[in-house]
């Protein structure tokens, strides 16, 4: 099989990339999706708050996904569902297996990687104790409740205050469970303020900051957890340890970009984001291979995924018609108070560019600054910056004269 643009994943990133590729002139656009339906994780995110930036209205996850599914169908984009990409070669040949295709290869003019991310699981935390039933990630619990209609437990403790954990605290409560508490290792929550208020405060669920689970109790089923406060290095303080009875422990302890395929084709991965290094066209270290969405960096809002994927899809289509000419690049770097910057490389092609980055801590009354040498090329005043909310700066191409360093400073 041949494709102009092949897209791996039909979540919000994959669908937006496919639509943009088609709208920018790619004729045969093929989306390959492992699940039986399109829309990815949005289908289980039944809460609202999606689409404020893209559509100017508040939608639920399934409604947001449906808009892109309908558009993809109208544009005659081929979607291969229940189809797994097994391997991608650096020369852009995908090996796939699925009910419509059987075992086959797809030769693609350009590829967009949109695999999304996975949740950090219990095994990654090295929690002492057995492996009883009742320990699951918040996303798994969300699938059980919202898609399958099963309640995974009655007395619940949640470790980690990421947004999915907060959303599930409310969801489990509404369905009759008793959510006893949410524990967060850090002194601040990684979740959106709105979720802390509307998912925890609304239901009087305590959020214990600088707290962690030190042991899981129970043989066949979780019977309880030991919890303790942690010091400023994250080490549990022994005399604060206490026992909390529960039958379920939900984990919301971080998301990891899914890049098994990218690694298989030796794409350069940023050790901080866990996603491919990309340029300002979302092109990876391999020519003609683009990446977007949570596979590149974990986003807080799906609207930003859509925006990023639209750029990736458009760039993939343009790549098909572009002559192969040398382009100069300048790298971006994370300076003081910045964890990472995406894109990692800027194409000096005359276009305006946006830098996306996260801060390392909570900063109040600060400025975010982009510099080239001593010259300030962008600057934004911020009342508050938190690691949970992605920041951005716009820069002009003609200002880029070397490494671009982003930092956060006192106002």
């Amino acid at each position, binding site marked *: 099989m041949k494709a102009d643009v092949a897209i791996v994943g039909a979540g919000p990133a994959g669908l937006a990339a496919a639509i943009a590729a088609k709208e920018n002139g790619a004729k045969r656009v093929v989306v390959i999706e492992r699940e039986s339906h399109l829309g990815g994780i949005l*289908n289980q995110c*039944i*809460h*609202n708050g999606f689409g404020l930036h893209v559509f100017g209205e*508040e939608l*639920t*996850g*399934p*409604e947001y996904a*449906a808009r892109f599914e309908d558009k993809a169908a109208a544009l005659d984009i081929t979607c291969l569902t229940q189809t797994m990409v097994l391997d991608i070669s650096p020369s852009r040949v995908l090996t796939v297996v699925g009910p419509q295709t059987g075992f086959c290869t797809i030769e693609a003019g350009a590829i967009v990687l949109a695999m999304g991310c996975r949740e950090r699981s219990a095994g990654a935390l090295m929690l002492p104790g057995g492996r009883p039933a009742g320990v699951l990630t918040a996303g798994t619990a969300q699938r059980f*409740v*919202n*898609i*399958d*209609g099963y309640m995974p437990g009655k007395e619940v403790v949640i470790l980690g205050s990421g947004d999915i954990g907060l959303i599930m605290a409310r*969801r489990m409560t*509404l*369905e009759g469970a008793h959510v006893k508490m949410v524990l967060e290792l850090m002194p601040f929550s990684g979740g*959106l*303020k*709105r979720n*802390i*208020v*509307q998912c925890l*405060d*609304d239901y009087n669920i305590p959020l214990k900051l600088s707290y962690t689970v030190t042991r899981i109790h129970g043989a066949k089923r979780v019977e309880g957890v030991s919890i303790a406060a942690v010091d400023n290095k994250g080490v549990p303080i022994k005399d604060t340890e206490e026992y909390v009875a529960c039958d379920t422990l939900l984990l919301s302890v971080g998301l990891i970009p899914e890049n098994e395929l990218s690694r298989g084709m030796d794409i350069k991965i940023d050790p901080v984001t866990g996603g491919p290094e990309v340029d300002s066209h979302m092109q990876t270290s391999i020519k003609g291979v683009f990446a977007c969405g949570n596979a590149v960096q974990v986003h807080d809002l799906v609207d930003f995924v859509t925006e990023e994927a639209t750029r990736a899809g458009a760039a993939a289509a343009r790549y098909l018609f572009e002559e192969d000419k040398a382009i100069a690049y300048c790298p971006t770097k994370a300076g003081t108070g910045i964890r990472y910057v995406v894109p990692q490389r800027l194409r000096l092609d005359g276009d305006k560019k946006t830098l996306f980055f996260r801060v390392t801590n909570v900063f109040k009354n600060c400025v975010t600054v982009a510099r080239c040498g001593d010259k300030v090329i962008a600057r934004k005043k911020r*009342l*508050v910056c*938190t690691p949970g*909310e992605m920041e951005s700066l716009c820069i002009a191409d003609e200002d880029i004269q070397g490494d671009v360093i982003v930092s956060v400073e006192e106002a």
Partner: protein
Amino acid sequence: METRNLTCIVCPLGCEMTAQMDGRKVVSISGNTCKRGENYARAELTDPRRTLTTTMRVKGGGRVSVKSKDTLPKGKLFECMTVINAWEVQPPVKIGDVLIKDIMGLGVDIVATSRINGV
């Protein structure tokens, strides 16, 4: 006079606000940095409302996701959940289909947010 603490959700700053209440009347609000914070606090203290999102059982198996078409009084959410959980819907379902009209006489419909194909 009663004192109420609340966190503003209008922007990421998340101002911690304090309000003085005389029964159901808001006497004063402090701690906010802007006018939008005060408006949020007034609405939240006098008539807190939320959009309810949940799922409904589908005849023949599975669930369909639903939402309240408009916001519901916060104090009525659990009762609305009981009503929705006692309901069952016959497929096919389209996005936006009204599944429960005027739930509990609150003037708000429960509508589908996902589609279920007929069998």
